[in-house]
Structure formats: structure tokens, C-alpha cells
């Protein structure tokens, strides 16, 4: 979005000699954006196009303010900063362009805002509230003082004069969180206006498409490069993308469909959302290349409706591409046609499973079906269909641009390229990171992620979403690649990475993920539908208060613990789809690495992490208690006795183990054991 008057776009014709339109496509249209005009020589046209290229590269004559307006930035408060700042700009009579950009990935620093003055590097600010925004306007824009104390660093730009005073600030990419990252998928995220096609194109965007169409080989070059690159599916399974494309390409039956799986549903995962919000064209270009490679002329992006901004950006991009003749029939006169639609999903987790996703697109209930036949043979409406994840598509343009070999030079033997992770949990530098495959988990957590909040001890990292696994300290040197993670009892998954400190109870964690999976089971196959419910019940029995338990309930609890593992095995062995087959993973992996913690819960009825409150005994430390009565007043069970300024006592018979007393006590006088 630009607030100033809409300038003529780089995508527009330079003069009436340019004949490109969707109806009369010009094969050189994209090359012409990069180096044109190509069909005629006219200094005026050259100058005009160069000026537009500069504008698209943010080389402007007035300052630009970039506001992080991804969902994370808006949620952190940017929606309030923008109007306040604009008011200030008006009051100061400043001619400044305000540009909304997507998420840069440093979620722990949101809301973020950058300012770029003409001929200067881009200066980045974090934790921007209204007050700080106004200070930036006054100090940097009005007074031209570099506010070093407010800034977190700079991003160099091609037009920045070497003697700019901003260069005294650190380079943003030298920050520990960024220095070890390698950004392919996230290359443009947070830097460009996601709604501006010309900004993507000016940075080489759709160059891969132009190259692939110019090859005139029906996508064979694209397929070969992707095969050479060794790209594997980023949605979780890690199936080689090139192989999948090959299988679909080999099908004789037409039409064929290409589907982008943007039904990101893992708790704590937001990689795909950020890419779609921050750089939608990268995904669409990947789809165009994929469609060319498999011979599809129709495509769908299946995106959950909970991502309204991503959907808005996608729809805008598709509309703009159609208007420019880059989507639709006979793209750039090549004979290749591709029509793209966005299908909004209702947010069922299971719709991330490919056959359920296809059923949902067809308007049916989102339930998986048996495979074979695989979608490559019989997918959407019974036609050959290829389904890839957002991040997979976002890698393709770079592969075609720089060659599969260059891509394959990053990573490990069987896992190539980079992986985007959403770092969450008790980690210092939470956010979106893109790291080369083959980094160790320790490096991801401690070097890139900055370690554990409050410098508490690391306990475990949950990788691969709810059906991934929990890995302990001893496994921190596991490499981030598909096969190492599987061997360790976890999986790559789509990229959720939840870090936990010593206060996290692994039984409670398994229970949390089990509950998620139980709730998201589609209900079709028996082991998943019935089995996950029973597993959850067993876990709930483990953390249930035991004081009121009768003998039969105790027996039941022990009996069910014995069956927990067997049940988990059967669910894994027999479930219909990947969701069910991996449903027991939270339990199996925590049992594998934290069995002692389960045993403590079951046999000793304690929670070593102190997280399962129902197992704890709350007492008042007489030495610390000041008799303020706050706990007694807040106790929902009326279990706390004590007069004002007298030590309080908790009646264990009445205590419901909610822990409110501990939460409200200002003197740390309530103990939980």
C-alpha cells in the first residue's frame, strides 16, 4: 500500500509502441521490465523505465517509512502506531511515503518500522510504540539526527552514500539471530511491499518464469533443475518434489491440477502465513513453474480462512497478474496457460492432509481417503493432481534462477537447501528463521534463537508440529534434516519449533498435544477417532488429582497406563492418514526420552516440573507470609484460613489445586510441592 499518489508502475507500457496485454501477449514483456525497452530505442522510454525501476527498488526522492504490517506486527500494536505517525507526519508537513511490508521474521522485536531517506541506508527500529514512533519522526525525519539509541541496525541499500552517518549503526544482518540464517524463501519478506508486483519484478521476480518459458521445452528444464536441486516437500513428509512432478507430468489424462497447500495448522507454526503475507508472488511464481513442469493449466491455493491478510494479498496478486497477462491463457504468448484460484478452508487441521484437502476443494467434507490411487493419478475431480506446500513453491524460482546445483550445494546429503522455522516457546529470539539444512538443533536454539528465556535450563524442543516429537538436551546435536530428525523420533514437519524450559512438564505437554489431535481428528477411521480419545483420557488420569480417587479408579489408572504404549502402537500402525499415524508421537517421543517423568507422575504422584498443579500440595511458608489476606480472598474454594497480619493456612481437604494463591501472593509465601 502506498499512501501517496499511485505512481505509474514498472509493469505499465513505456509508450504506445508497447503492445503487451493479456490479449496480445509479448514474449519479451518480463525481460523488457528488467532491461527494456527492447522493441524500440527511445531515450525517453529508457529514462522512464529506469525511473520506474528505481522507484520499485525504493530509490526515491522522498523518505520511505516501512511499517511491519504482517499479522504479527499488527497484533503487536502497529495498527495503532500507523495512524498516530501519519498524523505527526502531516503536522510536520513531511512528504513521506508509508509502505506496508510483511513480517521480517523478528517477531520478538515487533512492532518494527524502518525508515529510509533518499541516498541513505534503511534504518530499522524495534518495539515501536506510538511514543517511539513520534520520537523517530521528530528526531530522524525532522531534525535529521540518527537516533542510534532507538535503532537496532541498518540494511544497506544500493543508493546509500558510503559516508552516510547511518553506517555507524550495526548492520542488521550481523545480528546473531540473522547472521547464521540463509534467506531464500524469506529473501523479500519484510523488505518489499507484498502488494506491489513491480517491486517483486524489479528484484528479479518472474525472471525464472521468463527463463522457463523462453526455454520452450514445456517445463522440462524446470523439472530437471528441481530434480537436480534435490528439493524435498516442506510440508512435512519430505517427498522429493521433482519426483512428484515427474509422476504427475507422466500422466496422460488431462486436465491436470496443481494445488498449493496453505492450510498451515500446527500450533505455533506461522511460516506459510508470513511468506504469503510478505511475498505472495514468490509462491505464485513457484506455482507457475510447477504448473509448467507438470502440464497443469489450473491451480488452487488452499488457504485457511483464519489467514485473511494472506488471502487478501493472494487475491490482489492474482488479480494484478491476470491484468498483466502473467496468469491466464497463453502467458507471454508461450501457449502455456495457468488459471489460479484461492480456496478458503474452514480451518480443519485434517484438511492439510492432501486427500482431505482435495475433498474440501471439491466441496465435500474434508476427510482423507485411501491411497492408492495417489493424487498424481487421480486427484482433484479424478484428474492428475500435484500438491505442494507454500514453502516448497517458494523455493522453486530461486532454483530455476540460480540452477539446481547451486541450491543443492546448501544442506546435507539428502536434505538440500534451507528450512524456515517458526521459533516459539520459552526462547529469547522467537520468530521466523531460515537456516541451512544440516545445522544442529543446538545452533538453531542457542545461536539463532538466542537461548532460553531468563537463561533457564533447556529441557526439550518439540519439532514437527503436534505429531512431531520432543527431543531432550541429549539430542540437541541432531542435524536439522529429514532423516536425522526421523531417526531421533521427531520429524521435520512443516517447521514449528517449540522450545521448552525446565518448568514444562512433559506429561502435561503430551496431554496438550493429544488434546489438539483428538479435537482435530476428522472422525473417519476408528483408531484415530476412538484411540486418541482414550489416549487423552489415560493422560488426563495421570495428571488428575488423586486424593479423592477410589480404589477402582486407581486400578483403572494403572491399567490404562499399561495400555498406553500398546494403544499408541496400534494407532500408529493402523490409522488411515498421516494425522492418525503420527497422532501418538507426542506420547511415544516423550515416553522415549522422559519416561522417568511419567513414572514420577504415576507412582509418586508428583510433577517434577511443578506444572501439573492438580498433583501439587500448596502450603504457606509461615516465615514469608505477611498475612495480607490476598490469597484467602482469591481462593475459589474457601480453603485458606487466617486473620489479617497472621500467617495463613491452607486446608488441604478443601484445596482444589488451582494455584491461584501462588499466583496472587506478592511475597512468594505459597509453596507448591
Amino acid at each position: 500500500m502506498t499512501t501517496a499518489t499511485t505512481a505509474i508502475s514498472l509493469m505499465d507500457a513505456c509508450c504506445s509502441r508497447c503492445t503487451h496485454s493479456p490479449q496480445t501477449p509479448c514474449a519479451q514483456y518480463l525481460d523488457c521490465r528488467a532491461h527494456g525497452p527492447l522493441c524500440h530505442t527511445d531515450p525517453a522510454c529508457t529514462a522512464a523505465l529506469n525511473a520506474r525501476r528505481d522507484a520499485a527498488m525504493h530509490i526515491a526522492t522522498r523518505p520511505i517509512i516501512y511499517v511491519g504490517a504482517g499479522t504479527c506486527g499488527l497484533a503487536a500494536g502497529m495498527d495503532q502506531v500507523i495512524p498516530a505517525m501519519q498524523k505527526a507526519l502531516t503536522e510536520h508537513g513531511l512528504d513521506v511515503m508509508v509502505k506496508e511490508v510483511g513480517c521480517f521474521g523478528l517477531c520478538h522485536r515487533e512492532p518494527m518500522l524502518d525508515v529510509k531517506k533518499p541516498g541513505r541506508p534503511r534504518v530499522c527500529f524495534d518495539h515501536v510504540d506510538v511514543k517511539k514512533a513520534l520520537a523517530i519522526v521528530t528526531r530522524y525525519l525532522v531534525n535529521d539526527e540518527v537516533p542510534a539509541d532507538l535503532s537496532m541496525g541498518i540494511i544497506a541499500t544500493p543508493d546509500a552514500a558510503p559516508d552516510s552517518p547511518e553506517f555507524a549503526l550495526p548492520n542488521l544482518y550481523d545480528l546473531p539471530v540473522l547472521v547464521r540464517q540463509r534467506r531464500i524463501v524469506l529473501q523479500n519478506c519484510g523488505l518489499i511491499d507484498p502488494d506491489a508486483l513491480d517491486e517483486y519484478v524489479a528484484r528479479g521476480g518472474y525472471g525464472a518464469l521468463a527463463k522457463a518459458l523462453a526455454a520452450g521445452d514445456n517445463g522440462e528444464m524446470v523439472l530437471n533443475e528441481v530434480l537436480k536441486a534435490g528439493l524435498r516437500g516442506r510440508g512435512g513428509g519430505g517427498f522429493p518434489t521433482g519426483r512428484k512432478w515427474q509422476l504427475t507430468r507422466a500422466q496422460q489424462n488431462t486436465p491436470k491440477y496443481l494445488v498449493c497447500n496453505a492450510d498451515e495448522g500446527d500450533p505455533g507454526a506461522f511460516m506459510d502465513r508470513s511468506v504469503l503475507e510478505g511475498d505472495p508472488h514468490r509462491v505464485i511464481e513457484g506455482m507457475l513453474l510447477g504448473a509448467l513442469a507438470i502440464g497443469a493449466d489450473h491451480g488452487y491455493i488452499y488457504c485457511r480462512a483464519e489467514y485473511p491478510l494472506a488471502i487478501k494479498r493472494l487475491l490482489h496478486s492474482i488479480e494484478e497478474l491476470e491484468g498483466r497477462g502473467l496468469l491466464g491463457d497463453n502467458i507471454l504468448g508461450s501457449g502455456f496457460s495457468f488459471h489460479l484460484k484461492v480456496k478458503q478452508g474452514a480451518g480443519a487441521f485434517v484438511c492439510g492432509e492432501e486427500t482431505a484437502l482435495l475433498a474440501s476443494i471439491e466441496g465435500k467434507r474434508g476427510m482423507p481417503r485411501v491411497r492408492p490411487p495417489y493424487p498424481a493419478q487421480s486427484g482433484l475431480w479424478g484428474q492428475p493432481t500435484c500438491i505442494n506446500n507454500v514453502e516448497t513453491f517458494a523455493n522453486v524460482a530461486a532454483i530455476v534462477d540460480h540452477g539446481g546445483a547451486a541450491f543443492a550445494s546448501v544442506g546435507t546429503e539428502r536434505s538440500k537447501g534451507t528450512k524456515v522455522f517458526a521459533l516459539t516457546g520459552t526462547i529469547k529470539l522467537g520468530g521466523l528463521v531460515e537456516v541451512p539444512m544440516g545445522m544442529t538443533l543446538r545452533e538453531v536454539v542457542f545461536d539463532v534463537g538466542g537461548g532460553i528465556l531468563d537463561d533457564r535450563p533447556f529441557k526439550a524442543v518439540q519439532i514437527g508440529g503436534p505429531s512431531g516429537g520432543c527431543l531432550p538436551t541429549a539430542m540437541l546435536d541432531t542435524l536439522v534434516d529429514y532423516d536425522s530428525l526421523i531417526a531421533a523420533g521427531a520429524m521435520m514437519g512443516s517447521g514449528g519449533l517449540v522450545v521448552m524450559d525446565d518448568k514444562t512438564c512433559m506429561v502435561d505437554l503430551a496431554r496438550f498435544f493429544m488434546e489438539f489431535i483428538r479435537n482435530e481428528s476428522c472422525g473417519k477411521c476408528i483408531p484415530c477417532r476412538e484411540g486418541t480419545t482414550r489416549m487423552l483420557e489415560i493422560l488426563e488420569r495421570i495428571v488428575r488429582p488423586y486424593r479423592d480417587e477410589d480404589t477402582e479408579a486407581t486400578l483403572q489408572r494403572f491399567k490404562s497406563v499399561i495400555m498406553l504404549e500398546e494403544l499408541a502402537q496400534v494407532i500408529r500402525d493402523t490409522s488411515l492418514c498421516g494425522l492418525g499415524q503420527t497422532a501418538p508421537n507426542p506420547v511415544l517421543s516423550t515416553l522415549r526420552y522422559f519416561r522417568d517423568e511419567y513414572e514420577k507422575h504415576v507412582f509418586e504422584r508428583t510433577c517434577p516440573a511443578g506444572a501439573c498443579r492438580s498433583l501439587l500440595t500448596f502450603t504457606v511458608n509461615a516465615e514469608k507470609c505477611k498475612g495480607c489476606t490476598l490469597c484467602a480472598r482469591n481462593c475459589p474454594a474457601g480453603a485458606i484460613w487466617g486473620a489479617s497480619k497472621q500467617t495463613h493456612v491452607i486446608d488441604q481437604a478443601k484445596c482444589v489445586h488451582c494455584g491461584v494463591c501462588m499466583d496472587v501472593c506478592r511475597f512468594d509465601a505459597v509453596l507448591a510441592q
Partner: protein
Amino acid sequence: MADITLTINGKSVTAQQGQTLLQVCRTQGIDIPTLCYLEDLFPSGACRMCVVEVEGARGLVPSCAFPAADGQVVHTHSPRARRARKTIVELLLANHPQECLTCVRSGGCELQTLAQDLGVRERRYEGARREAAIDASSVSLVRDPEKCILCGRCVRVCEEVQGVAAIDFNNRGFQTVIAPACNKSLGGTTCVNCGQCILVCPTGALREQSNLKDVWDAINDPEKIVIAQVAPAIRATIGEEFGMPVGSRVTGRLTAALRRAGFDLVFDTDVAADLTIMEEGSELVHRITTGEEPLPMITSCSPGWVKFIEHFYPEQIDNLSTAKSPHMMLGTVLKTYYAEKQGIDPANMVVVSIMPCTAKKYEASRPEMTDSGYQDVDYVLTTREAARLMKLAGIKFENLPDEAFDPAFGIASGAGVIFGTTGGVMEAALRTAQFLLTAPEGEVPEMVTREMLGHVDFAPVRGLEGVKEATVEMNGLTLKVAAAHGLMNARTLLEQVKAGTSPYHFIEIMGCPGGCIGGGGGPMPTTTEIRKQRAKALYNEDEALMLRASHDNPIIKQLYAEYFGKPLGEKSHHLLHTSYTKRSV
């Protein structure tokens, strides 16, 4: 199909490319249990009962859907596979009411059998149960969602075989229930009451709305004259309920049993089928010769089908023959002509139709079906209910002597008999249409000899193919006819009518696959093979009868002579014909 060789349970086995592991195993005498599997439909893979171990595969694979391949090594009953199956049954039992002793399906329940066969001896898993109310809103069907194991067979039959899709999965995960959209009650939906869902239900989650008590009470009421009428398909199916082989013809024993159960009179609905043919055949001739009503004319004997067209093709209801279905005709005739003749107060007459059909319960309750001044048919019992009634009455069916129907409506033609199978109504109509077209208009048909009739067998309309068609030359007229069974097949023909491309004069449609011998009120199980055997029994009975065509039936002749005058006459228009209602989807 190329031959492949695989190893199953250590034994080398030859199979054909394209077969599933389940198919191969069944030919090898290996029984792999299934719950959601339905022959002829795309495997659902929901129940996971049929999982087997295939070496090299990641988990266990569902044999119902997994293609057999050359060199495969399969273990169907390895400890791992057996443990999985047993656990699945245990999981189902953990969420199932403990009502086996009182359940309508006890003894015939597939879940019960599996629990027995897999050696489940205790409930190892216990916890929350899905709670859902019984839906008794339909006149024909009762749904008990707590007994439902969500195998989805009913959903697939309703959608894929019947093209109705009245029910589907609602909610998700543990809260999933099968119900009409938005958890509505079945009564107000597009459900056509065909009962095919009951036939495929492995448990007692679906059953007919029982009228057993009503009938039993009527029988025990000395004031009431309780009349049973028996549909054609019953004689070829009810034996199965008493352990007799499929395809046993038990017409005589059935009559004896109903009499001993306390019915005052036992009549044959086949007689009314002959009456239907007279009316419907005349209507066809009338439509063809006058062009007053639209063609093709479509049969209206199958009440599930009638409700289907009312919902899904309401613009085509004028194509339906206005003739009532046979048992409704007989009900009307009994409460008018017969009551008058015998001096019985129709108010004291209770007509009970024994039908292979759950939709007949709905049909009998339709407000249109009161032309006699009373509810023309009081109660409909399905084949299964009739068998229960006999058991209740202490009847040892197998040992009964053969007895004849009561004579007033006891002699039927072979045409009436084959009404019970797909193509039968068409064939019966053709036998008479052939005659009607040659008879002087308006004349009451005289007895004709077999020789005069020419051929009476119309082979092209027989068999279990979904849509059958034939061209018949009659009296210089080329008649194009088609017959379909199963409502998905009916859709094919109706779409042609809708598009204006239907080449037919006359279409027979039966709602259930196979026709009434595959009816939703019939014995369980019902499979394609069983349908064939039952149909064969009806054709054998037809073959054995001297009387082959409806217009030859002396009772019919008497009926027209004494009461109705002629087919499509004023009285028959009033009593033997009906009207239809346009309904929405």
C-alpha cells in the same frame, strides 16, 4: 489381466493384477474381517479392520484397498495384525452401549460377531461415550446414533447407490455422528425411506420403525378383522429369516404361518399387481395413443422412488403413472368392494401389508392414501418384522404345511409374481400391453390363451444390470422401454428426460437395487449374489404358473365386471389412482 505371484502367510499364491489383497485372500480361503467394506463401491478404508502386514510397508495396510502386487509378502494374521484388529474392536466397544441382550440386531450384529471371533473377553478401554438421542422422526426408519460405529456404509449407500445423500457425517472427531445435514431429524429430509442404509448397517444403529405391537394388538382385538396381504418378494426371501437357503420359495408355508399367527384372512398382493398392470398398462396405451399426457410414462409402484422424483425431479411428476402401487390398490379394494360384498364394516377392518420395504410404511401414511374413506392400509410390516411376529407367535416355520391364500384375492398371474424384481413390472406390463393394443378399445378383456399371447418372456429387461432397455414391436407400434433399479441409475434416465433426449415410451424404476427382492425391509445380508438367487426364485414361480398375464386373471376380470367397469374408468380413477406432490430438496 496379467498374473502375479505373491506370498500370503508363507504360501505362494497366484492372483491377477488389479485385485486387492482382500479379494485375493478371500479366494484363498483366508477370512479377513471387514466393517466398512461394501462390494462394488470404492473402498472407504475407514474401519481398519482388514489391516494386514505387508513386508516393507510402513504401517499395516488396509487389504480392502491395497492392490496385490507381484512379489509381495503378506501376513494376514500375524500377532501385529491380530492385535490391531482386536484393539479396534475394543475401541468400538468402549464407545458402544452395553445393550446386546435387548438390541434388535443381537445375533445378527457384525460388531458382536467380531468381538466373539477376535476373542474380546473384557472391556479394557473405558471412558467417555458419545451421547446422542434416538431419531424416531421418520415414519419408516429409526436411527440410534449411540449404536453407530461410524463405518459410513449407510452414508455411501445413500449417496453412491441411491443418489439421495440424506445423511452424512456431522461434527468431527469423537463428536462425529451420522445424521442429516446440521443434525436435523430424518423425518423432514429428502430421505426416501428406502431402507438400504438398514441393510448395510453392521449394528443396531439403523432399524425400521416397528409396527409389530400395533399389529399384535389388532390381532388380539376380537372386534377387528385383520387381513394380511403379502408382497411378491416375501415368498422368495422370508425363508432366510428362518435359516433356509437363499432363494427358497415358501409361498404356501408363509400363508400357513400368517394364518397361525392370527390373521383372519391372508391375501396375495400379486393379485393387486395384476390390477395395477391393468390400470397402468391401459394408461400407457392411453398416453401413447392420445398423446394427452407426457411420455415416457414411468412406473409408480416403488414408494421410495416416488418420493425421490418428488424431491429431486418435481418437474417430472406428470410422467409418473397415476396408478397406485399394488398393496395400496388392494387396501382400497378391500375397504370398499370387498367390505361391501362381505358386509364387513371397513372401520373394523385392519389391513396389514407384509412388504420387503420400509418406504411402504411411509406410503401407507400418505394423506392421499385414504380413498376408501379410511387409511387404505393400516400397517406395513417388513419381512424382518413379519418373521419376528411369527417367532413371537411360536411358529416353527420350517415345519409348516403349504396352504393356499384365501380365495377372494388368492390367485395371481406370473406377471404379478415378477413384480418383485427389477424389470418385472415392465415385463408384466408388456405382456398385457401387447394384448391391450390388440383388443377393441374399452372392452373388458376376454380370456386369451397362451398361444394367442405369443411370447410372454421379455429377456432384455431381466437381470441386474443398472439400466436395461428394450425395443418391442407390438401391433405395428415400436415401443422403446427401459428399466432401472437403484436410484442412482434412475437419475441417468431422468436426466435424459430432463434434457429432452429420452427415447423411451415407458420406464420402470424400482428404488432398491435388484428391485423388491433387494428391498430395505428384507433379510440381511443382501448382496448381489443373494439378489440374483431371490430373483431366480420369482422367475421360477412365474415359469411354473399357467396364468402368465395379468389380464387373464379371473379375479381381475370379476373385479372389473362387478365393480370397476373398465380400466381407467371413473371408479378406478377415484379409487385406484393417486396424485403426487412436488417437494423441495
